């Protein structure tokens, strides 16, 4: 069966520090991968998606970047965090135009 992992589960970082969040998927091949952010009390905002290794599409211009170095690995990064980067970061995978399966999320607080 397929599983999706995200780490860390929680993170507290100072403004201006770098960020690296990792997501890995097991049990499937060539999935579409997605990064979302959910601010407190808000809906899901799609940040990046990827349909293959090295292929990244950005939905919202911002202080973040994403990379997909391996088929089932998706990384979200920032060189310098802003206060507004705080939120709940969710990774998801899907096969083509089907349902998405979400990871457990990372709660990021930028102070």
């Amino acid at each position, binding site marked *: 069966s397929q599983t999706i992992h995200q780490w860390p589960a929680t993170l507290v970082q100072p403004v201006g520090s770098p960020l690296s969040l990792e997501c890995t998927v097991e049990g499937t091949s060539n999935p579409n991968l997605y990064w979302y952010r959910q601010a407190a009390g808000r809906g899901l905002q*799609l940040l990046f998606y990827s349909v293959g290794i090295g292929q990244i*599409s950005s939905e919202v211009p911002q202080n973040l970047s994403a990379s997909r170095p391996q088929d089932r690995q998706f990384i979200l990064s920032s060189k310098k965090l802003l206060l507004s980067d705080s939120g709940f970061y*969710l990774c998801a995978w899907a096969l083509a*135009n089907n349902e*998405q399966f*979400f990871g*457990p999320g990372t709660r990021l607080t930028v102070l």
Partner: protein
Amino acid sequence: SQKIEQNSEALNIQEGKTATLTCNYTNYSPAYLQWYRQDPGRGPVFLLLIRENEKEKRKERLKVTFDTTLKQSLFHITASQPADSATYLCALPGWGSSNTGKLIFGQGTTLQVKP
């Protein structure tokens, strides 16, 4: 641009009643629509997908309708239970989604079922 609207006010109902949640969309003709459940501090969990040529879909106590003329989907939970309390999100394929499967989510409606 695409716009998805869900009732931002929480829906409070009594156990055993039917809960009905609404999802409206504009500027768009989606090929399908999905519903997810999200519990606090957790990622969303897929519930149902309904395609544009399907009027209605059922799964156990869940029923989804899709009216492409009204540009609206209704999500029903019959015989609701306190365990159904959660936030329910509707999602539509984003512009240019092709085979990317990218989704645009509504804000979600929080359902509270009281015993």
